[in-house]
């Protein structure tokens, strides 16, 4: 069944990358996996169309980020976790205390954090980052600049502050 095989291949290739990036944003591996899985389900539902896109992963990334930044979804997940008990839902992941950059990212405003991850980790150009976030390129540049500066302070590493040209 080619369609199934294609989706399975796509899933295997895209899931870890997307989950890793969203983990950097949420700081919660379980939530990142949930978000990416939901985005994959949405993709499967429209796979006949999504599979024809030049970059199906870009579509899934957009859906996943939308889900991750949805206030309603965060609220719902919070309620679900509260109902089930937080401890039972824990997914093993890197100890945040040992991943200083994740803690530092958590200190950034969500928009800055998302822009930094999309641009520096997912290698999206500023234009694509701005398009995905639905803001102007100048806004993204500003967020990237402030985000870098803040991370440099938080991590005590001036080199992280970089140069504006890195943007």
């Amino acid at each position, binding site marked *: 069944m080619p369609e*199934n095989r294609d*989706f*399975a291949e796509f*899933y*295997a290739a895209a*899931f*870890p*990358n997307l*989950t*890793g*990036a969203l*983990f*950097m944003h949420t700081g919660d*591996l379980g939530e990142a*996996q949930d978000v990416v*899985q939901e985005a*994959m*389900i949405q993709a*499967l*539902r429209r796979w006949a169309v999504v599979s024809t896109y030049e970059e199906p992963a870009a579509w899934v990334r957009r859906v996943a980020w939308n889900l991750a930044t949805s206030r309603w979804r965060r609220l719902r997940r919070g309620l679900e976790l509260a109902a089930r008990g937080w401890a039972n839902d824990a*997914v*093993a*992941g*890197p100890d945040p205390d040992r*991943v200083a*950059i*994740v803690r530092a990212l958590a200190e950034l405003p969500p928009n800055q954090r998302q822009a*930094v*991850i999309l641009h*520096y*980790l997912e*290698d999206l150009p500023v234009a694509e980052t701005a398009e995905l976030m639905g803001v102007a390129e100048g806004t993204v540049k500003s967020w990237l600049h402030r985000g*870098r500066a803040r*991370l440099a302070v938080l*991590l005590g*590493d001036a*080199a*992280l502050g*970089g140069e504006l040209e*890195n943007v």
Partner: protein
Amino acid sequence: MSDLDPLRSALTEAERSARQFVRPPGAEAARRTLRRRRAVRNTTLCMLLLFLPLALFLQLSSLRPSPAPLSPTSGPTPSGSVPAPTPSPSPSSSPSPSVLPSASVSAGPAEVGAPAAPASPRCQPKAFIVTTELSATRYTVSLENEKTFCPDGVVPYFWARYGFNAAFDTMVLLDSGRSRLDWTHKRRTVVISGTGDECDAWFIVQGSAAIKASIPWPKGQDASDPDDAYALYGRGNTKVAWMPFTRSGCMARS
């Protein structure tokens, strides 16, 4: 965007360290979830298609207009003259209501034209009656909850008129009668003759209680209390009209 960018390197390293913990639920899990959601959606749609018409039908049934309200009869009520009663002065005598001159004061003609209607699941088989004084001698007896009254509901009532007997210091039954309200007779007119006497007392009472032949005068005003030993009627019956002992002349004699 140099690969030597320390921020890029730090992020990539952290992301890689996290990736080793990623446990994808799998493409098959996504398919199962999608199938389950489709099944739930289809089931919900089927349930809606099945029950929506039923719910609409029930809603419309409950909103079905009740039969047009009935108006009180305006025509004269057959009311015979009240023969001069000569009741037994003995309080112990208890004439049967069936031998009372009930024909002398009769209920008005039944309402006609009320359409028969099927029983509604929300209808009330019981109802309170209410009275409206049309004149000094004419009263309308009707249902309080006429619109929700069940087609097979029956509400009995009776009326009784007492006169003061000074010799025995008691109130003696002069006239009485019984009737009932039902689907086709939701209103009736009661004419109580002879109420010009200032010492008469008369009652229109809901229920089927036995009609007492006499009421001791000192306790006359307690006749409306179902708990009183001299009550005109018992618990479970409802007094809806009470016209005794309000005239100064009569009260003075007590």
